[in-house]
C-alpha cells in the first residue's frame, strides 16, 4: 500500500476542488426562469409611498405598478387610456366628471375602491402635515377646489381655475394615483413603520421590500385586467452604473439604464439589446444674472457664442444625444421649432467681451454635480471658454452639496451652474421652475421677467391648445432674450436588456411601467 504524506493529501484535495469548480458552474448562476425578471434601480426606496409625499421617480414607478389612477399612460408615449375610471370627462373648464369601474378591490382586505377614495387621495395634496410641512407635490393639485362625491363610483373634480396640465402631468401620473382611505388610516404607505405597506388595486402587489437589497413585486391575484407577463418583478438597487452593466453581462440583471458614453461598447455584447429614445429632459448652463459680470447681457451673449454645444455633446455624450435650442423638447406642446441655432464664434465672443469691459476675460466658477458626464461637460466648457480668456474653475459637488448651492441667499454667490431637470408631458411642468417666485429655490439664474411669468401663468390656466402653444413659445423667446440659458441637450434615454425582454418606458426615461414589461 502506498503511503501518502499529509502535504500530498492536502495538495490532492485542493487540486480536486479547483478542477471541480472549473468544471461545474455554480447552480445559483443557472439562467433565471422567465417567471421573474430583475431590473436595476439606481437607488433604494428612500421614503414615503404616498402620492402626495413621494420622494422621486423610483418610488413613483413602484407606486404606479401597485396603485391605479383614473387614467394611465400607454407604454412609450404620453398618450393616456382609462384605468380605474370607466369614464372621465371634462365637463367645463373647472369640472371633470369621473365614474369608477366597480369591483376594483384594494389589496390586503381594504375593500372596494369608491369615489370616497378618489376624494381622499386628491385632497391629500392640499393638507399640511402634523409637522407643519406641506405635501411635497402640493403644486400638482394646486388648482383643486375639492372633489364632490355624487355616488358610490361617481364624482366630480372641481377646480378653482382651468388646469390643462392635469391631463398629462397629474391624472395619469403619480399624483393621480388612488390610495385606500381605510389603509391610510390604518398606517399604510408610511415609511416610518416597517414593513411598509403599499395598498392599491393595480396589477402587482408590493410583496417584499428588504431595505438596500431588493423590492419584490408579485402579481395581484384579484387583478381583472390583462395578465402581466412576469409573475414576479424584482427591483435591485445598483448605485454604480458600471456594476449594473457588469451584472447585466453576468445575467444577474435583465434590464438597466446605461450611461450614453458606454452605449457603444454595450451594443457589441451578444444577447444584449439597446433601447435608445430621445428624451424630454433638459440640460443647460445657467448664468446668474444678478452677479457681475453675468449681470451684463453682453457677457452672457459672449459666453453663449464661445461654447460650441455640438463639440460639448460629442465629447461628453459620445454623440448619442442631439443639441437643444430651447426649453421644450421636440414633440411637446410649445416646442419652438424656429428657435435660434447659434453657431460657435469665438472671435465674436471676444469682441463682445471687450465691449462689456473685459477685453482679457475674467475668472469665474462653473458649479456641477459629480457625475462623469457632467464632469466631461465641465472640462470641455472650461477649455472652450479659456479660448476667449475666461478662466473657469470647476466646482464639482456631490448631490447633497450641489442642490444646496442655489438655495436661498447662498444662490446669490453662484456664477454659472450646469443644471439638469426632468421633463414631463405638459409644458407647464417645465416652465414652473423659472418664474420669479422660484428665485432662491430652483430658479438658480435668479432671472426675473414678469412677461415670462405672465405668459406661463396664462398658458397654465387655459384649455385652448393653440393659445397655450403660442404662449409657451412666447415664454421661451423671453428666456432666449435673457441670454441666461445656454441649452445643451434634451438627453437621450438608453437602456440595455436581454433580447427576449420588451421594456415599457415613458419618453422622459425616468418613468417605467413595470406592469407592462413583456417578453418578446
Amino acid at each position: 500500500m502506498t503511503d501518502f504524506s499529509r502535504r500530498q493529501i492536502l495538495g490532492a484535495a485542493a487540486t480536486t476542488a479547483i478542477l471541480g469548480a472549473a468544471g461545474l458552474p455554480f447552480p445559483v448562476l443557472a439562467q433565471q426562469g422567465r417567471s421573474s425578471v430583475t431590473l436595476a434601480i439606481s437607488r433604494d426606496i428612500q421614503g414615503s409611498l404616498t402620492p402626495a409625499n413621494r420622494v422621486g421617480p423610483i418610488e413613483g414607478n413602484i407606486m404606479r405598478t401597485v396603485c391605479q389612477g383614473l387614467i394611465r399612460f400607454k407604454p412609450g408615449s404620453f398618450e393616456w387610456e382609462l384605468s380605474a375610471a370607466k369614464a372621465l370627462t371634462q365637463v367645463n373648464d373647472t369640472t371633470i366628471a369621473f365614474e369608477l369601474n366597480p369591483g376594483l378591490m384594494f389589496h390586503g382586505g381594504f375593500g372596494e375602491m369608491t369615489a370616497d377614495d378618489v376624494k381622499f387621495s386628491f385632497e391629500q395634496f392640499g393638507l399640511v402635515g402634523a409637522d407643519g410641512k406641506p405635501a411635497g407635490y402640493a403644486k400638482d393639485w394646486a388648482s383643486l377646489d375639492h372633489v364632490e362625491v355624487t355616488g358610490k363610483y361617481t364624482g366630480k373634480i372641481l377646480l378653482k381655475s382651468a388646469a390643462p396640465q392635469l391631463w398629462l402631468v397629474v391624472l395619469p401620473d403619480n399624483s393621480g394615483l388612488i390610495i385606500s382611505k381605510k389603509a391610510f388610516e390604518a398606517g399604510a404607505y408610511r415609511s416610518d413603520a416597517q414593513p411598509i405597506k403599499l395598498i392599491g388595486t393595480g396589477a402587482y402587489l408590493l410583496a417584499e421590500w428588504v431595505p438596500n437589497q431588493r423590492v419584490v413585486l408579485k402579481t395581484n391575484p384579484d387583478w381583472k385586467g390583462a395578465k402581466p407577463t412576469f409573475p414576479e418583478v424584482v427591483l435591485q438597487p445598483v448605485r454604480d452604473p458600471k456594476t449594473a452593466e457588469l451584472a447585466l453581462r453576468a445575467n444577474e440583471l435583465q434590464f438597466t439604464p446605461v450611461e450614453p458614453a458606454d452605449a457603444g461598447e454595450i451594443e457589441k455584447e451578444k444577447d444584449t439589446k439597446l433601447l435608445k429614445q430621445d428624451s424630454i429632459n433638459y440640460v443647460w448652463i445657467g448664468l446668474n444674472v444678478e452677479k457681475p459680470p453675468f449681470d451684463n447681457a453682453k457677457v452672457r451673449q459672449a459666453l453663449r457664442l464661445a461654447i460650441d454645444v455640438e463639440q460639448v455633446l460629442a465629447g461628453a455624450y459620445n454623440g448619442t444625444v442631439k443639441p437643444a435650442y430651447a426649453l421644450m423638447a421636440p414633440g411637446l406642446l410649445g416646442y419652438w421649432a424656429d428657435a435660434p441655432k447659434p453657431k460657435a464664434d469665438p472671435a465674436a465672443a471676444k469682441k463682445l467681451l471687450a465691449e462689456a469691459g473685459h477685453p482679457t476675460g475674467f475668472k469665474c466658477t462653473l458649479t456641477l454635480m459629480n457625475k462623469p458626464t457632467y464632469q466631461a461637460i465641465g472640462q470641455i466648457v472650461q477649455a472652450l471658454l479659456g479660448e476667449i480668456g475666461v478662466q473657469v474653475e470647476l466646482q464639482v459637488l456631490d448631490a447633497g452639496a450641489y442642490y444646496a448651492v442655489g438655495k436661498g441667499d447662498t444662490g446669490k454667490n453662484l456664477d454659472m451652474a450646469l443644471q439638469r431637470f426632468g421633463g414631463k408631458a405638459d409644458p407647464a411642468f417645465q416652465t414652473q421652475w423659472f418664474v420669479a417666485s422660484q428665485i432662491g429655490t430652483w430658479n438658480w439664474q435668479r432671472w426675473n421677467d414678469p412677461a415670462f411669468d405672465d405668459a406661463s401663468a396664462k398658458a397654465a390656466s387655459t384649455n385652448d391648445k393653440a393659445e397655450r402653444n403660442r404662449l409657451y413659445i412666447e415664454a421661451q423667446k423671453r428666456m432666449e432674450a435673457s441670454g441666461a440659458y445656454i441649452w445643451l441637450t434634451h438627453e437621450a434615454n438608453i437602456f440595455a436588456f436581454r433580447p427576449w425582454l420588451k421594456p415599457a418606458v415613458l419618453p422622459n426615461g425616468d418613468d417605467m411601467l413595470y406592469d407592462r414589461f413583456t417578453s418578446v
Partner: protein
Amino acid sequence: MSPKLRYVGSRIVTTLLVLVCATVLLFSLTLFIPGNPAEVLLGPRATPEAVAAYSHIMGLDRPLLARLAIFLGNVLTGDLGRDVISGRPVLDLVLEVFPYTLTLTLAAIGLAVVLGVPLGCYAATHPGSVLDQVGAVTSVAFIAMPNFVVAVFLVLIFSVWLHWLPVLGVGRDGGWGDAVLRLILPALSLALSWIGYIARLLRASLLEVLGEAHIRTARAYGVPERRIVYRNALKLAAIPTVAILGLGVGRLLGGAIFAEIVFARPGLGTLVYDAIAVRNYPVVQAAVLVVVGVFTVTNLLTDLSYLWLDPRLGRRLGEAR
C-alpha cells in the same frame, strides 16, 4: 493595583476619551452645514413657521453647550435621532445594515490572515527562494492596485467570463450557501491588498525575530526548526501584524464602501453614501459613530492582546513600577 490592571485601565480610559472626542466632533458637523439644518431637513417648500417649529424641536434655538449635552445624553441612551427622510429611528437603520458590513470586514480580514500568514512564514523561512521573490512582486502589485480596480477585474473574470460567482447583493432565498458565494468576490477584493501587506510585514518581523539570541539558544538546544518558527518566533513576530490588523478592521469598516457600492451590497458604506447625497445628517452621524466605536474598541482589544503575545511587556510594566 497590579501593573497589568493599570495598563488595561489606562487603555480603557483612553478609548473612552477618544469616543467622547469623536462624538463631539460629529456633533459639530451640524455647525458646518451651510444654512439652517431645519431648512435642509424640511426642504425648499417649507414655510418659515415650519422651519421655526423644527428648529425648536431639534433644539437649534438653544445654547451650543446645552445642545452638545443633549446630544451626548441621547447617544448614551442609544437615541441617535430619526432618519430625515423615512422618519425611522436611525439606530434601527444602522443595526439593520451593520451585520453585513461586519461580515464583509471579518471575511476580508480572515482571508487576509489565512493566506497572508502562511505566505509570510514561508517567505521568512525560505528567503530568496522563487516563491519568496514571486510573493514579493505580487504582494507589492496587490498593495499598489486600488481595490475598486481589483473588484472590477474579479467581477469580469469570475462573473462575466466564467459565470462562477454572482455579482450583486447578499443573496435572497438561497440560504447560507448563496450568501457565502456572494461574499467571496467582495471579501477577496478587499483582502488582496491586505494579504500582500501581512505577508511582507510578517516576513520582515519574523526574519528579525529569528535572528535574536533566544532563537539561537533554542537552536543550540536542538529544538526542531518548525517548533522554533511556529511556537516561539511567530508569536513575537505577530505583534506588528496584529497591530496592523487592528487598524485594518477599522479601515475596512469605513472603507468597505467601495465594495458595497460595486457589489450592490447593503452596509454602513452604502447607508452613509446615500445619506450624504441627500444631506441626511442624523444617519451620517450615527453610522460614523458606530464605525468610530468599533474602530476604537478593536484598537483597545489589539492593545490588550500585546499582554498575551509579548511576555516582555508584562515584565516592562512591572519594572516601570
